[in-house]
């Protein structure tokens, strides 16, 4: 985990379509919330992008760099108090093992959708 203790993985499920769905809990006491923002903790969108990348690494067992993002939409605001639990779905492209689509959601709310390309990370 890059930003240490930013979240914990509570579970992982494989779906029939080959996607992996992770259940995670955000750590509301994390230092990032001291600066984002003082008196109004909002989960930084880039921390959620980083979480997607790390769960993508977990799902395929490779160390990755997210080299390209075709599109990433932040459709609802994530806060450590209002949305402490999230599901993260990682779906690898059937034709290209370096392309993935990811969704962060919980219940009926979608927080983030991302489509991107990865490469093996050497460091």
């Amino acid at each position: 985990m890059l930003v240490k203790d930013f979240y914990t993985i509570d579970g992982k499920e494989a779906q029939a379509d080959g996607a992996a769905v992770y259940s995670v809990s955000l750590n509301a006491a994390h230092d990032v919330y001291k600066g984002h923002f003082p008196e109004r903790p909002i989960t930084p969108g880039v921390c959620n992008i980083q979480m997607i990348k790390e769960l993508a690494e977990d799902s395929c067992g490779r160390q990755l760099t997210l080299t390209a993002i075709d599109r990433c939409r932040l459709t609802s605001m994530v806060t450590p108090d209002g949305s402490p639990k999230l599901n993260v779905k990682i779906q690898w492209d059937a034709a290209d093992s370096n392309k993935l689509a990811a969704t962060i959601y919980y219940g009926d709310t979608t927080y983030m959708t991302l489509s991107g390309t990865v490469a093996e990370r050497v460091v």
Partner: protein
Amino acid sequence: MYSGDGIKTFIPQREPMLMVDKLFACDESTVETGLKVLDSNIFVYEGGVVSEAGMIEHIAQSAACFAGYNDWINNRPIVLGYIAEIKKFALSAAAHVGDELVSSLKVVSQAMNITLMDATTTIDGKVAASCKIKIFMDKKK
């Protein structure tokens, strides 16, 4: 033209999330910012490479500097801004501890509280990352 704590005049982010430390230039449609990558930076991997998230956050806070500077110079309050969308992000070179990131952003379109900007980050004049970023400014707060 502004550096270090001077940046805090224009953006609401604070340590350890601060990812811009220089504002070189800003006008009504462009902004140029910088960041010296320190080893204490929370977006740096073991081994000293800046993460993808760190590169994007630097660009997002550069867009926030653009909005904040233009609010400040027009005597408007500084508001919180959020990333609404990132498109065509490409990471072309790794940034390391000690590198000086220099970012240049240009407004593509502006409507209501949404600003779309074209962003390029360079290290020693070489492109390291680029994207189109849409920022939502929360002006009701």
